[in-house]
């Protein structure tokens, strides 16, 4: 089977899954059929992704970029919009990661979402999301990219506001949608800027003209790339378009695992990697990407230190790690960036799944302040958290270690002002280790709290009344709100299987690119990045320095966290908070980005909306145009109506006057 056929099938199965699940919507209240259907669709998709991978590897390296067209949508002089996919190592890597991790998350959700009245809807949306993501990843021209991008936006909004009767969830969905649509506009405008001079929408065709573009139309190219970056930043939650990601934790935990760890937020990274020939022609755009990436990774790490909602800590860590990836692919470390994307997908999804398990044990509560001492009650979950935490902190031999250090090594290679990126990268790695293990120690060490104690006795704690964890509002468990059941990993087979697989992958995932030992990922991605003008040679000194530094900082961070929270009961952190109250306030308020955006954008927009409605709509449109035109017609008809008085003599007079006028006319004529 050719790679493209396998890719088309891998694309088709999630779509089929969506449609079947949508038709089975009635079964969601009682059975888990839709869950299994969704998982099976994804499993088939993953199988065909593997087939595509093997088939691609079976070809010789020069012929590993294949375009397959289903049909021509609109092919005219300057536009060639085709329904075509591009199968090359980069897209196959993304295909594998997306379908693989999605399959495991589907498996997890089969158990986790049990009892929710919107079960079938959930799996339909989830499958649709995977389909959109695959469409985005496999697109071979800008049109399909934009379509996939927009579908992903839509699917993510549907999933974030899945519990649609919660106002916090719908607000979060709206926020994510608005910011992502801004990104969509950026992509479309960027496409136009690039299309102006290339005359083709096809990726390979555009890349063939990359050199010429860079030489002759530098300004347009840079503008177009920066607009594309706007799209990438919106989707990947980079500053300043990141405010939707923490709020998006309102969605169910599997959604956070899938969308906000492994797939959607990596779309921006994929975009930059895909467009690398263009980015290499425009140093400005590449630098913008790198700078935004590094700023994001530092800011997110600082915020992660003080946040108290369990899922939001993990969300900020996602933001930070994506910052690493964006920085990597903007500066030419493509393989390193994709490597980190892959490993991050593993351990971040694992962390989210484990967090979901803990939240279930807490009866839906997400606040870290209320969690203590789950170590004995939930050993499997604790183990998964530990593995994920070690990978995230970058401790060897876990996968996160190799991927993160690879990125920073390239920064050292480039030298110049990239040394700042290097330093900041390691600083943030240190902070990452601290906040990750803060989370783990606070939740699992210490005296078991009420819920943990109940669980040790074998009984899952339930809140007396289901409430919204953020606002405390009382809810019911009917459709639109979370279901009454809570599922933890220790008790559910599917959840254990999914988390176990991810834990395994997080542990040994680094094997594909161990420096000086294996170059599997490098070789695999070689055909895609063969024409890259950025060449990195690893110098031994920097390599060992980086590896040692990474390991040391990671261990130091864990040790500090251990000292403060595992043995020290958190008092040192409180002292530090009082001493640096201003800094703490800055971090807790998320560097005031929400407030700034509110002032700069939301207020003027709502002012304009109010103005448009009250002044323009009411006075101009309704008053002048509508009222004016009807008024004119009404006045005219009133004038004509006056003729019909019913007064016989008036009618007769009109008749005679008319007759006299006609006669006069004829008299005058002759």
């Amino acid at each position, binding site marked *: 089977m050719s790679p493209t056929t396998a890719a088309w099938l891998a694309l088709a199965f999630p779509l089929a899954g969506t449609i079947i699940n949508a038709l089975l919507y009635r079964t969601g209240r009682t059975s888990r059929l839709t869950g299994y259907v969704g998982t099976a669709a994804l499993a088939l998709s993953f199988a065909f992704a593997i087939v595509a991978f093997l088939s691609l590897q079976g070809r010789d390296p020069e012929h590993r970029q294949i375009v397959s067209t289903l049909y021509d949508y609109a092919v005219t002089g300057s536009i060639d919009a085709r329904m075509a996919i591009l199968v090359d190592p980069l897209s196959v890597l993304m295909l594998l990661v997306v379908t693989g991790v999605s399959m495991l998350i589907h498996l997890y959700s089969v158990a986790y979402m049990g009892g929710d009245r919107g079960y079938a809807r959930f799996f339909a949306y989830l499958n649709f999301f995977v389909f959109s993501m695959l469409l985005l990843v496999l697109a071979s021209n800008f049109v399909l990219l934009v379509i996939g991008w927009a579908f992903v936006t839509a699917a993510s909004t549907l999933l974030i506001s899945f519990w649609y009767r919660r106002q916090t969830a719908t607000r979060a969905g709206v926020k994510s949608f608005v910011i992502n649509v801004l990104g969509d506009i950026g992509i479309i405008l960027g496409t136009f800027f690039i299309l102006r001079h290339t005359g083709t929408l096809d990726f390979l065709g555009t890349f063939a003209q990359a050199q010429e573009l860079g030489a002759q139309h530098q300004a347009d190219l840079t503008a177009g790339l920066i607009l594309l970056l706007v799209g990438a930043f919106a989707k990947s939650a980079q500053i300043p378009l990141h405010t939707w990601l923490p709020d998006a934790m309102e969605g169910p935990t599997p959604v956070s695992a899938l969308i906000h760890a492994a797939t959607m937020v990596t779309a921006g990274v994929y975009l930059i990697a895909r467009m690398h020939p263009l980015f290499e022609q425009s140093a400005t755009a590449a630098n913008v990407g790198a700078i935004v990436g590094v700023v994001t990774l530092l800011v997110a790490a600082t915020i992660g230190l003080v946040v108290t909602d369990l899922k939001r800590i993990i969300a900020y860590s996602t933001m930070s790690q994506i910052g690493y990836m964006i920085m990597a692919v903007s500066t030419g470390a493509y393989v390193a960036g994709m490597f980190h994307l892959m490993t991050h997908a593993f351990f971040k999804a694992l962390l989210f799944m484990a967090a979901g398990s803990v939240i279930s044990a807490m009866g839906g509560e997400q606040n870290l302040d209320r969690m203590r001492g789950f170590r004995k009650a939930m050993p499997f979950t604790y183990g998964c958290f530990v593995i994920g935490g070690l990978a995230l902190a970058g401790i060897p031999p876990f996968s996160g270690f190799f991927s993160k250090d690879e990125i920073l090594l390239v920064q050292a290679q480039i030298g110049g002002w990239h040394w700042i990126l290097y330093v900041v990268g390691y600083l943030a790695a240190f902070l990452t280790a601290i906040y990750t293990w803060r989370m783990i120690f606070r939740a699992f060490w210490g005296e078991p709290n009420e819920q943990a104690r109940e669980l040790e006795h074998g009984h899952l704690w339930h809140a007396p009344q289901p409430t919204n964890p953020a606002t405390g509002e009382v809810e019911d468990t009917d459709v639109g709100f979370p279901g009454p059941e809570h599922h933890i990993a220790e008790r559910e087979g599917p959840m254990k299987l999914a988390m176990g697989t991810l834990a395994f992958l997080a542990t040994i995932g680094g094997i594909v690119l161990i420096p000086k030992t294996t170059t599997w990922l490098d070789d695999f991605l070689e055909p895609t990045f063969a024409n890259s003008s950025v060449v990195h040679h690893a110098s031994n000194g920097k390599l060992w320095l980086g590896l040692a530094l990474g390991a040391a900082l990671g261990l130091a961070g864990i040790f500090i966290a251990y000292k403060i929270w595992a043995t020290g009961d958190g008092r040192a952190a409180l002292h530090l908070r009082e001493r640096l109250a201003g800094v703490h306030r800055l971090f807790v308020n998320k560097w005031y980005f929400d407030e700034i955006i509110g002032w700069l954008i939301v207020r003027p927009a709502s002012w304009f909306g109010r103005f448009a409605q009250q002044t323009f709509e009411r006075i101009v449109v309704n008053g002048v145009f509508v009222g004016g035109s009807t008024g004119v017609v009404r006045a005219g008809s009133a004038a004509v109506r006056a003729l019909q008085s*019913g007064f*016989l*003599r008036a009618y007769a007079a009109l008749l005679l006057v008319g007759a006299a006028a006609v006669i006069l006319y004829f008299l005058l004529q002759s």
Partner: protein
Amino acid sequence: MSITWYLCLSALVFSLGAAGVLTRRNPLVVLLCLELMLNAGNLALVAFSRMWGNGDGQVFAIIVMVVAACEVAIGLGLVVAIFRRRLPVDVDELRELHG
């Protein structure tokens, strides 16, 4: 006498009838003035018939007489009905048919 005189006479009677229609308030008298106008038309027709020397005008005039008779019958029937209904028999008061 040249035909012109008859035609002038017809014009005068016609305009007299028109003035009467516009001026009088009693519907009966309005109908009478209408008769005047019709008769003026008849006179003109007969004069033209004499001028051309064929009988077309006279036949036309007969038909006009028929029409006038019918109209009078109906019109007077209406006036009688109005009177029976106890409405004021005055064209200025009878203006229900307005827009």
